[in-house]
């Protein structure tokens, strides 16, 4: 699938699918096929989102969630890239640490959330920590693999041309691992948002997760869906920004394998 991506008809088609799903939902709720109490209505959800936005009541919550996600993402990416590079360049350390890294990665992170709440309290840091544990592993594994898979001929050539270890990292290893790191960033952004929202959901006094959990507490399905809508919109926007950055940084590639892969989905 190559050409259709750029065709306006694809946009029309995509919009049509979304519109008919929403239309069906709205119709079902109005006709009484779907119980409004359990399923709410798209028009109600939209009205709620609109009300949140115009009254400004959502912004402090969204601000907190975004701050937590951003911190989790930044710290997680930083640690993941750093440790990925370190271990890829020191095979002995990699061998020694491997079982532990695999063990921690196998742990479902949600079970850690209550512990982080105990350790770091109800504020933002328990959520940030939860997000970091998720983002870190994704970025770490991708960076490690990216550095390991650098073409040895390219590395040898750079060394023959006089590259020091730090120059080798900057001019060869980082750019080469970038494709891998970027494919992990796409996923990490979403996961950072999800994990901090889960953290908020389990215990907090601010954030989109808190808003959702409050709405759920009073069986306000409209509020739950509205919270999810806001979350989805933000994730999509951030994702688009990352993609732009990626396209610029990977402009030396004839076709980014990541995007090619997505297209084939």
């Amino acid at each position, binding site marked *: 699938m190559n050409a259709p991506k750029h065709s306006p008809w694809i946009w029309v088609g995509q919009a049509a699918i979304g519109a008919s799903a929403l239309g069906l939902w709205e119709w079902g709720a109005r006709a009484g096929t779907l119980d409004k109490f359990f399923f709410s209505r798209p028009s109600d959800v939209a009205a709620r989102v609109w009300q949140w936005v115009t009254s400004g009541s959502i912004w402090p919550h969204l601000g907190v969630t975004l701050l937590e996600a951003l911190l989790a993402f930044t710290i997680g990416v930083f640690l993941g890239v750093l440790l990925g590079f370190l271990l890829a360049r020191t095979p002995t350390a990699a061998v020694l640490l491997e079982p532990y890294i695999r063990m921690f990665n196998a742990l479902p992170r949600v079970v850690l959330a209550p512990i982080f709440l105990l350790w770091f309290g109800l504020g933002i840091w328990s959520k940030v920590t939860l997000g970091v544990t998720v983002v870190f592993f994704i970025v770490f594994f991708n960076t490690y693999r990216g550095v390991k898979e650098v073409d040895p*001929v*390219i590395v*040898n*050539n*750079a*060394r*023959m*041309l*006089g*590259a*020091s270890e730090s*120059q080798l990292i900057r*001019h*060869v290893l980082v*750019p*080469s691992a*970038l494709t891998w790191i970027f494919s992990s960033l796409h996923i990490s952004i979403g996961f950072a948002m999800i994990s901090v929202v889960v953290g908020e959901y389990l215990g907090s006094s601010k954030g989109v997760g808190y808003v959702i959990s409050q709405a759920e507490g009073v069986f306000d399905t409209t509020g739950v869906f509205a919270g999810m809508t806001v979350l989805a919109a933000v994730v999509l926007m951030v994702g688009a920004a990352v993609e732009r950055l990626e396209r610029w940084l*990977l*402009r*030396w*590639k*004839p076709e980014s394998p990541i995007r090619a892969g997505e297209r084939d989905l």
Partner: protein
Amino acid sequence: MTPSAVSLEAVTARFAGPGGTEYTAVEGVTLDVAEGAFVSLVGPSGCGKSTLLNMAAGLLAPSVGTVRIFGDPLRGINRRATCMFQQEALLPWKTVLDNVTLSLTFRKPRERKQSEELGRLWLKRVGLEEFADRFPYQLSGGMRKRVAMAQNWIAGPDILLMDEPFSALDIHTRLRMEGEILNLWAGSNKTVLFVTHDLEEAIALSDEVLVLSAGPAGRLVGRYPVDLPRPRNLIDIRAEPRFADLYRSIWTDLREEVLKSYERADYERRHAS
């Protein structure tokens, strides 16, 4: 007597083969390349030419034997040499100009302006000045080889190791590049160790041709000084009687090795199935 630029002293290279076996690629090879000489290495495919070059580059330590560079035993990377690899070695994420000036970026990171000027000069020499801002994937294979050549020469090494640099080029570009190499090399006092599978190319360019035997355990089977006068005209030289004589005498030896390597490949194919 001044020491040779490159000397391999009874070097052997062994690699781990399949299933814990050991594969001896080259065994007990001794060769000297005098400073300022242009020496070619020929031999059938898989005989260990690239392996020897990697040892001279310091990228591969010999299992047995010593490598000396200007008399000093080589440890780690050979800082006085660059290597034009048989495979693609340009950085795909850097433009043509940035690739050409790579060694200057590493050694003189502060002098970007001068580096760029020098880079453009070299791009002009290899006929690629309009392509300075392209990325390698936007060039043809032959153009990429020319970029690699500029990238190597701009570094100004005392020793140039070249692994089949022109085998991917069409005959016209190839003749041009061969001529360019000779021009650059003449009067530069640089030492060139040149790997090729093309015996004509080896004779036309070199002061001496070294013939390796078929692998495994490739050895040096002959050294042939090429006494053709310089400067050489690469087109006419192939028609000279002396050229034909040299070609014939080297080919008799090389032919035998090529046939051996065919037989071995045949034998292996039959035993594999």
